[in-house]
């Protein structure tokens, strides 16, 4: 029988499509303030080790977590209130799933990659790499908007077909 997810703790979350061992964290985020990223990273490193996620995959998921969370800090909210962002890390025998849920404005990272590789160094931008790189680091990227909340799931395969 499934147990409810605990903040910062381990849980068996049968509501997740992957149905495997999972860990959950709640990042408290305020517009323009990046302090939540360090806590999320520390939680992720501990959780990925506990779930025995291979290091190379954990490194790339760490990257995706930080970029997506920074994107939420930068763009999701119109107010300066603190918002909870739920982060789930789940793995089964074949895949690892990293899910972020927030109550900010709708943002679909799958829609329209507008990134263009710079033709010269001078044309290279200083911003705008994050979501593009998340796409390139994932095997599959899922997005759902439900009840005023964004849910983005990064999928990394453990087993190569």
């Amino acid at each position, binding site marked *: 029988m499934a147990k409810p997810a605990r903040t910062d703790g381990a849980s068996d979350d049968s509501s997740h499509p992957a149905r495997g061992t999972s860990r959950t964290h709640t990042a408290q985020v305020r517009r323009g303030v*990046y302090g939540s*990223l*360090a806590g999320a*990273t520390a939680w992720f490193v501990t959780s990925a080790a506990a779930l025995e996620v291979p290091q*190379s995959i954990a*490194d*790339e998921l*760490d*990257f995706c977590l*930080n*970029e997506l969370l*920074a994107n939420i800090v930068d763009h999701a909210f119109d107010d300066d209130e603190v918002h909870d962002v739920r982060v789930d890390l789940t793995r089964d025998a074949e895949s690892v799933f990293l899910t972020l849920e927030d109550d900010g404005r709708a943002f679909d990272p799958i829609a329209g990659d507008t990134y263009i*590789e*710079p033709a*010269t*160094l*001078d044309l*290279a*931008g*200083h*911003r*705008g*790499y*994050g979501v*593009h*790189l998340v796409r*390139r*680091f994932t095997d599959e990227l899922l997005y759902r908007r439900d009840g005023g909340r964004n849910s983005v799931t990064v999928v990394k395969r453990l087993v190569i077909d």
Partner: protein
Amino acid sequence: MEITFEQTHDNVQLIRLNGRMDIEGTDHIEGRLTAHALTLDYARIIIDLAKVTYLASIGLGCLVRTAQGVERRKGKVVFLSPQPLVAKVLAESGVSQRVRIFDALEAAAEFLERLPQEED
């Protein structure tokens, strides 16, 4: 995040970065990096990434800004020995197509030393 500066070979500067180049790390070193790199015309700079364990997009932007600034002053930046995750960030962003990456210090220094030091 740490940053150190060395002179290596003739007219080649070596900037070593150490740590996690995330928002906090980048904020910690960017002022010193750009202040050092953008001081001289025709600067030849190796940025050693061997001990950079993580490169966020904001850190990538910092490296791009530095390389652009140096090139606008007729200089050149190359990167040295990025770890796999950092190398992947550089590759997938296309930046590695625009800034040379070397695995060995000697090769990087020789490349920079062969460049003209001043315009005719």
